[in-house]
């Protein structure tokens, strides 16, 4: 219905002539398009997706570079690197990273990768790109809000970047920003201006996520093309839908927590601050009755769903890519949706497992243990469904497929350690050790990155009408997969031995200086893996301009609707009518046919899925 109205012009204005020769369909859909309206303040969901992706790539380079810097410190605590002083000035006096700056690096690494790369860069990119294309819509429910969503993200990025350049440095209280460290300007250098900028940036980021999420939900529920019932949408759409639901319901609570924190910082309130004694002023604070735990509740009510906001889009894309490249229907379509739903519900009920050692009532803790371990059930359903999709498939090992398989591998490895950490008793020993670092990097960080890479390799031809270079892609995959395991696997042992997070130098600590060589090894591998990511970035930008051209509209022989558009679709996606859908998207290898697109009517003799 209002699909056509969304573009605010009659349908025939979008129609171009039936000629879709390469590079042709792109420029002629819109006559009044200027550079500004096409590339900058674009309301085309595909352009906004690319904006999110490229901004995300820039952030990923920055965030990754931060980790290289602090890995240098962890691997070589006794050496100095004069180049660091040249680059960082007073933050690396004498070529050694200063403690304040070390914390700033860790904080910014977490913030940037969790929010700016794996939330905005991942779901921002693929929700924008895939939702209208895969459900058969001209654009989002509100293209304008969609544009605002990107520009709020951009504003958040600018504020966050600028916090790197203030005199007292960026926020350094950890990506969770627990008070009192984050509430007291005097607590550390990073708790001064840097912390305020961090909060402002995050508030803008929340607005961006909400604007995006609202749009994704109403687009999925209201703008599907004829015949596209909810049991016929690809699993990517289901995953992006639940991601948006999680974001819309949990980000506002984080914002509430931030508002109270801002008042504690500048308004003199005592929401989180109590009469603690400060070493720097030799006095107790005037505040009374505040509860730092209150912040943790508000933070983790978002913080845990955030893990799934990051992971679900990757799961959805992996399901889709795996089915296409196994040439088999996804195993257990309804079970996949059901498990996504179960994860979404459970995501809201497990936040206190981040707070087992905060003085939480142990009886309450045991409830959260139970709920946390329940997540293993839908997760296992998903893993078995992926494995059974691969089973006896006619697998094409495209780069996207390799990254999808890599995702499943990492999700299993990282998920299993979640069972350790979900137990409140084990958590007494394991909390705040490298075991936790290893766990969440594998299961959430690297796994979601693999989902992101899989998505980029798979949909790059649709985005830019060209392919990425395969040689570089295979090199990227193998080095990243092996590297990720080499980096994070040893951290489990360090963590089990009790080695704590957030320390910048273990060389003088007798219990842990046995890990000196191991830490150096991890650091060397991280630098190699980082270099290979730069190779991917090169491949990405090189291929936009010089990649091999796509010559067929459906290069992966896929069933979904995005491959029924021209090679380079204009604003409005389909030059003519939006195609009607007659079947689910996973009819691969059915009735002796390799693939049957969703647009093909169900035959007289054929049983529909």
């Amino acid at each position, binding site marked *: *219905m*209002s699909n056509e109205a*969304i573009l605010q012009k009659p349908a025939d204005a979008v129609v171009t002539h039936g000629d879709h020769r390469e590079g042709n369909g792109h420029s002629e859909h819109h006559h009044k398009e200027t550079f500004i309206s096409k590339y900058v303040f674009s309301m085309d969901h595909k352009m906004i997706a690319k904006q999110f992706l490229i901004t995300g790539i820039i952030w990923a380079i920055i965030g990754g570079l931060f980790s290289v810097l602090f890995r240098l410190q962890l691997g070589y605590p006794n050496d100095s690197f004069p180049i660091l002083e040249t680059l960082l000035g007073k933050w690396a006096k004498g070529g050694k990273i200063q403690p304040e700056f070390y914390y700033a690096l860790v904080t910014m690494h977490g913030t940037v990768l969790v929010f700016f790369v794996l939330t905005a860069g991942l779901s921002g990119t693929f929700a924008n790109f895939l939702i209208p294309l895969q459900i058969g819509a001209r654009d989002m*429910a*509100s293209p304008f*809000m969609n544009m605002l969503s990107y520009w709020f993200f951009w504003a958040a990025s600018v504020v966050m970047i600028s916090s790197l350049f203030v005199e007292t440095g960026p926020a350094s209280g950890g990506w969770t920003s627990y008070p009192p460290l984050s509430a007291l300007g005097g607590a550390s250098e990073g708790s001064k201006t840097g912390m305020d900028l961090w909060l402002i940036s995050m508030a803008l980021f929340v607005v961006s996520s*909400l604007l995006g*999420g*609202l*749009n994704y*939900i*109403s*687009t999925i*529920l*209201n*703008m*599907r*093309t*004829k*015949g*596209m*019932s909810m*049991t*016929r949408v690809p699993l990517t759409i289901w995953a992006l839908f639940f991601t948006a639901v999680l974001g*819309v*319901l*949990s*980000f*506002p*609570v984080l*914002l*509430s*927590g931030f*508002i*109270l924190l801002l*008042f504690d910082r500048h*308004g*003199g*309130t*005592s*929401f989180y601050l109590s009469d603690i004694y400060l070493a720097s002023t030799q006095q107790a604070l*005037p*505040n*009374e*009755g*505040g*509860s730092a735990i*209150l912040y943790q*509740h*508000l933070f983790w*009510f978002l913080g845990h769903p955030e893990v799934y906001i990051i992971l679900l889009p990757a799961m959805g894309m992996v399901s889709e890519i795996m089915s296409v490249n196994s040439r088999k229907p996804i195993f257990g379509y309804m079970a996949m949706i059901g498990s996504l739903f179960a994860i979404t519900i459970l995501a809201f009920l497990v936040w206190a497992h981040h707070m087992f050692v905060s003085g939480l009532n142990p009886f309450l803790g045991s409830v959260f243990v139970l709920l946390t371990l329940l997540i293993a059930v839908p997760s296992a359903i998903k893993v078995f469904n992926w494995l059974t999709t691969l089973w006896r498939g006619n697998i094409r090992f495209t780069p996207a497929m390799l990254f999808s398989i890599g995702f499943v591998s990492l999700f299993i490895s990282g998920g299993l350690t979640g069972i350790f950490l979900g137990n409140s008793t084990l958590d007494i020993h394991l909390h705040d050790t490298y075991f936790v670092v290893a766990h969440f990097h594998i299961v959430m960080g690297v796994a979601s990155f693999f989902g992101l890479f899989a998505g980029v390799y798979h949909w790059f031809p649709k985005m830019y009408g060209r392919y990425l270079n395969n040689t570089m892609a295979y090199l990227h995959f193998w080095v990243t997969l092996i590297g990720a395991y080499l980096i994070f696997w040893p951290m489990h042992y360090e963590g089990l031995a009790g080695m704590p997070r957030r320390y910048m130098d273990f060389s003088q600590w007798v219990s842990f200086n046995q890990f000196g060589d191991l830490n150096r090894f991890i650091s060397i591998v991280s630098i190699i893996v980082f270099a290979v990511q730069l190779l991917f970035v090169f491949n990405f930008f090189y291929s936009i301009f010089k990649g091999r051209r796509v010559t067929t509209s459906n290069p992966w022989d896929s069933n979904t609707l995005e491959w029924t558009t021209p090679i380079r679709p204009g604003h409005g996606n389909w030059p003519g009518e939006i195609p009607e859908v007659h079947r*689910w998207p996973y009819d691969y290898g059915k009735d002796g046919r390799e693939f049957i697109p969703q647009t093909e009517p*169900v035959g007289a003799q054929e*049983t*529909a*899925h």
Partner: protein
Amino acid sequence: MDTVMINDSQRKKMHPHKFTLWVGLGSIIMMFAGLTSAYIVKRDQPSWIAVDMPLTFWYSTAVILLSSLTVHTARAAFKERNMLKYRRLISVTVFLGLLFIVLQYVGFNQLWNSGLRMNGSGGVQFLYIIFGLHGLHVLGGIIALLVMFINAYSRRSRSYNMVPVEVASTYWHFVDILWIYLFVFFLVIK
């Protein structure tokens, strides 16, 4: 699974903008749910001071309830294409909205002048922040109503499109109901 509705797109669906609004309201509810649950948790902490609301907030409650009524009748008038009545009622609603904000400000002033400042950790600090944020949401509604007000008086727009009117009036009812919730919350839970 072959029983799925083929005529799915022919179903009468909600306009996406209206639907977006509903989802957005869910999001706003979560924000205030977060704040009020923080209030409940905080109440058990030592040195909690309960707050008594001044009478002014009863007046503002009456005003916002009345404005809900006027926006409702304005919507009905728009539906009947009775534009004169619609214009008047929209103007009254905008006025009542502004009056609500003024009354909230007066209420804040009364509390502030009785010595209840931001330092401390009782109900009043929550009240300032929660009512303040609610006020910001009301302001957003007033801006939406003002846009409709300008549209109603500008000559070129002779549009009888119900969607913007319905979106604005739904939102207005929402901030009203949200206020009733917050008001009762602060009355009952001390």
